């Protein structure tokens, strides 16, 4: 497995990187941790003529508490997310999900920006960020915009990102008091990607659920909010029965596009999605207190 030929650039600033992307627009790909892009290049499923390696740019790897929320540099690795006390305290599900991506080698290289930009249908992070809410900061040579995470994942391996844009930051909002979070994953035995993964962020106030964001990955062609599940939870006391009913609708949004492969049939995926939605919501509710 050998990639086809490409030119390699190692810019040292975001400006330089975005200039390169503009100059080689259509041909160039950003290289972050390389753990999705390089396997695809080796299989010659991707044959970019130019690689713009953003790994050498200072200042893209950070976790900062800002205005109540947290901002994360796009080159922050899974390992950094998993072990960060800020992430553990503010978004335990993100720390937990990051710790369960693949294996240590992948976690040492793979980045939050790469994971979102790649939008793998079985990626963990897209579902987690969807459940937290927030936005993705995308920069070109001339401009910068915030893309709401709810509008970021567009389709299979497709996002709202343009091919001259670089993700520089992910902005996460502060979670309200009384919010509990959880990520529950059933992994594919070979790659450890999610066959299904469910992220739940649940706010409970005075015994009732005042807000709920639940997102599912692995089951369909992209990470998706389970809005029907959320609707069932909101405004109710989170009893076993309510959670069970909500979880049973977790696969509803992806019903028509369920993945099917040698590891899990569509039917089994739908079943696992419900089971893990139940686990995630229950844990999140328990954490919400």
């Amino acid at each position: 497995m050998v990639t086809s030929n490409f030119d390699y650039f190692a810019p040292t600033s975001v400006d330089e990187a975005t200039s390169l992307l503009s100059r080689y627009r259509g041909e160039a790909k950003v290289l972050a941790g390389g753990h999705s892009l390089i396997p695809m290049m080796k299989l010659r499923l991707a044959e970019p003529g130019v690689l713009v390696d953003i790994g050498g740019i200072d200042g893209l790897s950070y976790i900062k508490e800002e205005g109540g929320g947290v901002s994360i540099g796009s080159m922050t690795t899974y390992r950094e997310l998993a072990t960060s006390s800020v992430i553990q305290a503010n978004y335990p599900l993100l720390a937990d999900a990051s710790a369960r991506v693949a294996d240590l080698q992948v976690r040492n290289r793979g980045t939050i920006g790469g994971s979102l930009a790649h939008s793998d249908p079985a990626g963990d992070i897209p579902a987690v960020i969807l459940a937290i809410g927030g936005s993705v900061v995308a920069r070109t040579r001339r401009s910068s915009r915030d893309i709401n995470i709810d509008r970021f994942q567009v389709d299979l391996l497709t996002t709202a990102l343009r091919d001259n844009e670089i993700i520089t930051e992910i902005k996460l909002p502060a979670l309200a008091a009384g919010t509990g979070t959880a990520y529950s994953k059933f992994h594919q035995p070979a790659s450890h990607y999610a066959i299904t993964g469910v992220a739940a962020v649940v706010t409970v106030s005075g015994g009732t659920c005042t807000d709920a964001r639940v997102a599912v990955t692995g089951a369909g062609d992209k990470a998706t909010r389970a809005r029907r599940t959320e609707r069932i939870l909101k405004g109710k006391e989170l009893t076993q029965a309510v959670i069970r009913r909500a979880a049973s609708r977790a696969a509803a949004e992806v019903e028509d596009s369920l993945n099917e492969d040698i590891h899990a049939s569509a039917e089994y995926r739908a079943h696992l999605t419900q089971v893990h939605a139940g686990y995630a919501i229950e844990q999140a509710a328990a954490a919400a207190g």
Partner: protein
Amino acid sequence: MAVATFGESVKRTEDPRLITGRGKYVDDVRLSGMAHIAFVRSQYGHARIKSIDTSAAVDSPGVIAVFTGADLQEELGGLPVGWMLPDLKQPAHPPLAFETVRYLGDAVAVVVADTAYQANDAAALVNVDYEILPAIVNAEDATKDGAPLLHEEAPNNIGFDWEVGGGDYGEAIKDPDVIVVKERIVNQRLIPNSMETRGVVADYDAGKGNITLYTSTQIPHLVKLLFSLVTGWPEQKVRVIAPDVGGGFGSKLYLYAEEVVAGIVARHVQRPVKWIESRSEAYVSTAHGRDHICDVEIAGKQDGEIVGIKVDLYANLGAYISTFAPLIPTYLFGLMLGGVYKMPNIECKVHGVFTNTTPVDAYRGAGRPEAAYLVERMVSRFAQEIGRDPIVVRRKNMLQAHKNGREVTTGVMYDSGDYKGNLNKALEIFDYRQFRADQRAARREGKLLGVGIAAYIEICGMAPSAVASSLGAGAGLWESSNVRLHPTGKATIYIGTSPHGQGHETTMAQLVSSELGIPVEDIEVLHGDTDMGQFGTGTFGSRSIAVGGAALFNSLQKVKAKTHRLASHLLEADPKFVTFNNGTFAVEDIADKTLSIQEVAGQAYAAANLPPGMEPGLEEVSFFDPQNFAWPNGTHLCVVEVDQDTGKVEVQRYVAVDDFGNVLNPMIVDGMTHGGVAQGIGQALSEAAVYTDDGQLLSGSLMDYALPSADMFPMMELDRTVSPSPSNPIGVKGAGEAGTIAASPAVMNAVIDAIAHLGVKHMDMPATSEKVWRAMQDAKEARRAERAAARSQRS
């Protein structure tokens, strides 16, 4: 390090080198002027080659030459078959296909370039025009009329029909008290994953006409012989070197196309050439394992007595017959169908079938895991059918203990074993009664626990050559050794088997040390270079100690005899009164008359005072051919928990009590057992090669082929019983494959046990979460339907 003893856990002397990156593998071989080769492989399961356009590849940067199968047809010959069966079909197996490709990965052309990258880039530019032909991948379907045909000379794709048996199964089941239980059991195809993939460097010496092949193989001597037979290259001009080899599991036990092609291409371009297999390439071009579809029935009585087993097996051969493929699903499988039981009636038919898949050959255990799985699964299945405990049924049918040969129904002679004693020890360690109580309590809390047992026996220590030859072996299966003591009393030995992870350098040195009293660090163990020593057969079939160790032992006895005679002469004592202990010759009752073996070795070279007729020097060779195979056996017990919600299986406990005869190095044997069990668990729970109907491999990489990982295993609890083997002078058996053989039935029996109360009776491997979940759903569904039917009948 001091003098080692037999039975001591000497630490592996090769490990510091291997784990600090100082090993020397094929890819570490860098010769001056070395070019690189890449293969162009078929992307289809079955297709006719209409034409090949190499022009773009030839013009690509760095390319030295491009050869197609047609270009090299004459020189390459055909790959050999090393085991004959009656009426075996042997369709030509060209190393580079030139008319038809018959499996995904079949090589059609080879590119030689200055660098590996250039060779790969150019290979992608070779344009092969194919006419796609219908393909077949399922061995049973391939035998049906109208199925796509792979080879004209093999109608219905049948490569061979073979049978074995004993007693009269048909007659036995006429007894009205006999209950017959039938299952269809699939033993899925596996893909070997040695850490080091295959690779070869071919170095052609134009001046002498010699070829040296550095290759990652388990059988350097056989590669030399077979390469020479296939290509007509004079054998004395062929040298094969197996440097450090990073695993094989049986998959490096053949002469492969790439070895032949590299040798011939090196001669063409007059430069050394290197090929290193990528992992993806390995998935399609290195032989696969298992792939059986089997109709099996077991027959017995309500009291638990088993009267026989009947097997009708479709064994997938893949597209061609790989070197030892005919042996694996026949003798190594059929002869083992009695297990550790009396099993008075056995009937076994095997159909070896060609399909559009990668050739199938030996994979750790090779035939024996498939047999043990059938027998042990069916014995448990039978126990379930008659409502008895699987341990009780096993005990009732087990062979009595024996020390020196017991002929069984298939006609082979087990060497030694105490099957019930071994079982009892395992049950005691495991505390079976307590487990059953725990299991009931857990079930009340909604937890599904199951226990599985496998009481296995296997045939290894390949092999008495005359027996093997009468069964079809194309080569002798003895082993050899050379022991040389240097004038300083240090030793260099050359062994005919070469390791690919087993630790030969340690165990063989340990044997020398314990026999001659020389410290381990004074002993150099050489292997794997055909120009360095005498012929040897290779490392497979758990034979290195049972056959190779015995050959070494015999050389050591010769060294002992000669040094004893020389020492007696030098000590001016009657040999009768000269003792040898811990490396020292002494004269009985005379305290100061001693000589060390090092001093004696020095005298053998000085030759100043040799006994009359004694030749100078100190070097001995032995060739050992065993009288019988060796037959390790044992009991493995496994506990699993099945998750109610998802069907996920977790192995919670694993107890293995094995009988490997005498054990030279317990630590190394434990390591072999750990690895073997891990591999067996992998087959039971996760591994599976999956082809589409048209011959595409869906499990084509480690992203989809689920090798087990460390988090799937509990700490294994190992113990042993010891029945020394009478088949060799050191009483050893062989421990390389046993774990793999026992583990998959132990795990599967545990999975079924955990959900048997729901009505589940059998499930094929791997027991993936989905399969287990479905089995539970189906069983519950069936119960519901039954109850509904019963209700409607009542009303």
